[in-house]
């Protein structure tokens, strides 16, 4: 698996730390415990395209949002986390 970092170019997956699903959204301000259970524990876990956080630990140390196909490990898109669309449904 190789990830194309916007700063460093195509690099081996070895340089990146996988930091989990980017498909969940923190329910800021909610006082409904179920919202937090959903956020912390429940996942769609799709077989197909999946948005994830990766940290380029052994490179430029940028946080990235990577869209990857979980069936083939093919990288579909890479964006800097700060520029990635935040409109993800929980």
């Amino acid at each position, binding site marked *: 698996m190789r990830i194309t970092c916007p700063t460093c170019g195509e690099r081996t997956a070895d340089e990146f730390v*996988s930091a*989990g*699903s980017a498909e969940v959204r923190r329910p800021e301000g909610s006082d409904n415990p179920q919202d937090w259970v959903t956020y912390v*524990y429940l*996942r769609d*876990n799709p*077989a197909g395209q999946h948005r*994830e956080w990766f940290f380029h630990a052994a490179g430029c140390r940028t946080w990235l949002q990577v869209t*990857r196909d979980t069936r083939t490990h093919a990288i579909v898109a890479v964006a800097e986390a700060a520029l990635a669309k935040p409109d993800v449904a929980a």
Partner: protein
Amino acid sequence: MRYSALSLVKNALTGNRNWKPVWRDASPKEAYDVVIVGGGGHGLATAHYLAKEHGITNVGVLEKSTIGSGNVGRNTTIIRSNYLLPGNTAFYEWSMKLWEKLEQDINYNAMISQRGVLNLFHSDAQRDAFARRGNAMRMNGVDADLLDQDQVRAMAPYLDFETARFPVKGGLLQKRGGTVRHDAVAWGYARAADQRGVDICQNCEVTGIRVENGRVAGVETTKGFVRARKVALAAAGHSSRVAAMAGLRLPIESHVLQAFVSEGIKPLVHQVITFGAGHFYISQSDKGGLVFGGDIDGYNSYAQRGSLPLVEQVMEEGMALMPMLGRLRMLRSWGGVMDMSMDGSPIIDVTPIEGLYLNAGWCYGGFKATPASGWCFAHTIAQNQRHPLSAAFRLDRFASGHLIDEKGSGAMPNLH
């Protein structure tokens, strides 16, 4: 046909031409009392215990591929019951007891070998933690022995005791732990269930779950609709996908775990040995190959293969523990799809949908649990309530806070 010494001799004398298929390759009937989704170890064990312990034989096991093609045929074949936490200890010990009498129960040679599982420790602090675990096991009636360095050296003189970054100081040994021929578990349970009338339907993928008025009505499959009074999900790495067919969202992510085997050598590793300073476990198959593995790759995956960085990491850990590994050639590596739950422990439970039952979240420790998982899941399905041994494996524990986190990693499935 019942297997015995006599049947072996008879078939040998007739040129082994008269062996019969081990189970019928059935097509799904129109309706069953229970449909089990997934013909892996857990699904087949569930079918066997449903038939044998609960008298429910009108059962169809629907498998999208061939039985044994998933994780039951892809693991490192280790059995053990060295768990610390309440909720786990008694369950895994029951599994060990079922392993010990499995071959007589299903009349099938599963090559169960209680060669011992030795968990190495590398520091004083780790020794104390392992002593605590061993004490918890013994208080629950599980065997455990704390070994010092000399005792470990007598068992495995080839380990790197002194010069490694993490010197081997001793180990916690469970003598009753060991290995089982994994394929034989699938085949043996399949044959035992089949003989009691269970249909094993291969290449029959479930594509939908029909729910009518909050109650399960059956499953859509690639071979048509199959009506069922009860539907039991045992789909391992694909649990999230089948549960989603009934509108359930699970506390599970699917990750890939790799395993490896070396070329065959003469007997060398006589136990299952685990490295305490990393995550590495090794044993030797009866064919002579060293079988070993380490961590999951760490990212969501439905591909039954991993990537090279993890291969390198596993080899490095193996070399740190056992430098002679460097002289061996690796023969094969493979990957399986693991249903990593959010606390590292499984789920065996009823669901909010009447007649729908869930068995999932085994992470990469499902093989050792196969008999007890089938035993408890069969009970849950037949009685429509949790079995006392699996009572802690509730689906709602994530909301109530009653997590069972052996490793203490928190809700990060790639760290369990």
